[in-house]
């Protein structure tokens, strides 16, 4: 799980172009949207593409993203869940 969490952090930093942010700076359980990293709906769409491209997981309804992309941990759990 730790390995996956780190990988996701790196990928999020890359696709969202979070300059000057290191994986260690991102709290695994902090909200990504709103107050946390300050991400918005366009970032959510970018994350949907990330899941499809890197993990082969297709999200059909963008509304589902809200739940999945709460924190880095919820993303990791979602990926683990899908792997099963």
């Amino acid at each position: 799980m730790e390995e996956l969490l780190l990988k996701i952090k790196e990928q999020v930093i890359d696709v969202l172009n979070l300059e000057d942010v290191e994986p260690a700076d991102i709290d695994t359980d902090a909200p990504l949207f709103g107050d946390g990293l300050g991400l918005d709906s366009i970032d959510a769409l970018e994350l949907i593409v990330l899941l499809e491209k890197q993990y082969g997981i297709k999200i059909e309804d963008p509304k589902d993203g809200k739940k999945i992309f709460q924190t880095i941990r919820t993303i990791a759990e979602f990926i683990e869940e899908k792997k099963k």
Partner: protein
Amino acid sequence: MSKRVFVTGIGIISGIGNNVEETLESIKQKKSGVTDIKYLETIHKGQLPVSEVKLSEDELIEMAKLDKSEPFTRSTLIGIIAAAEAVKSAQINDIKEYKTGLISGTTVGGMDKSELFYHDLVNTTKHIEYIETHDCGDSTERIADYVGVKDFVSTTSTACSSAANSMILGTRMIKNGLLDRVIAGGIESLTRYHMNGFNTLMILDKEPCKPFDDNRKGLNLGEGAAFLVLESEELVKKSGKKVLAELTGYGNSCEAFHQTASTPEGKGAYAAMKEALDRSGLKATDIDYVNAHGTGTDNNDLSEGRAIQTLFGNNIPKVSSTKGYTGHTTSAAGGVEAVLSVLAIQNNMIFPNLNFETQMKELSFSPETELLEGVKVDHVLSNSFGFGGNNSALIFSRY
């Protein structure tokens, strides 16, 4: 300023017809232009329905009697056909007789050919005649040359409100005496570029779109071109020609909220409609019909619906979106819907909002679902909202 601006000609081509007559016929028969993709080469064929102009480029070239060896983009071809029809409908014989401008709106420009030949343009010297058809101005200048306009040409590019903004500039130039008449509208052909772009935003419905429906899933893209001929009061008096409608109000406002979304309460939509109403000198209760932007996306229909409620309160006029017929023709939409608004006035008709089934929870009104004939349509409000926050509204009135 006391000067008035009149609509004396209309021209249109879209998925529901190649001219005004065919368009009206399709509307009356509730015949939608939204079908499986036929002309655009894309992996989304059979997956995403669109409203294409039902002619190949060869057929369009033939129709406009153009030279096949010239580099025409699809958007230029449909633009030429619609603009020529508008000029003819305004009974203009000598276009150079009066100071005439052409203002078109487009955002995709000549992308339909650029995307087809892009690798060649980068890597080879093939198809280089299409390097200069890429930009938005190319189509406007070719249309202007075709109909013979020389005094002023320009192109607006504000995504889905482009055509409405063309008409706004045209109106203001006539009112200021800079031009006597303006051919104004917009064009857009389907491209893989913007179809895939909209698809990444996850706002394309895989079924025919359902504007203002609680279960709406997004929009269907469409292509088309539509132009109005706008003329000054002096010119109309001089010629005594038939006036189709008067452009009585316009409004332009920016949402300044988010790159792709409007505020849930429809602040920008309200501001544009309110400005148009104030300029027209009409009261909200004078509006008989709102031809809504109504794309079928979650965000638009909610914010536009709320803005309509805020503006009209308890006296909401008939409202419908005609996107179910034409798809969302993006930059051309303001032109397509301006032509439909003029047709509504001329024919005393209100058009149905196709595919509506379920009332939206957040709204107190539902769109008109039947074709209403023989009804009073003296003033029509037409909305066009573009992503990026460019909201515009126009009011057309009976003369």
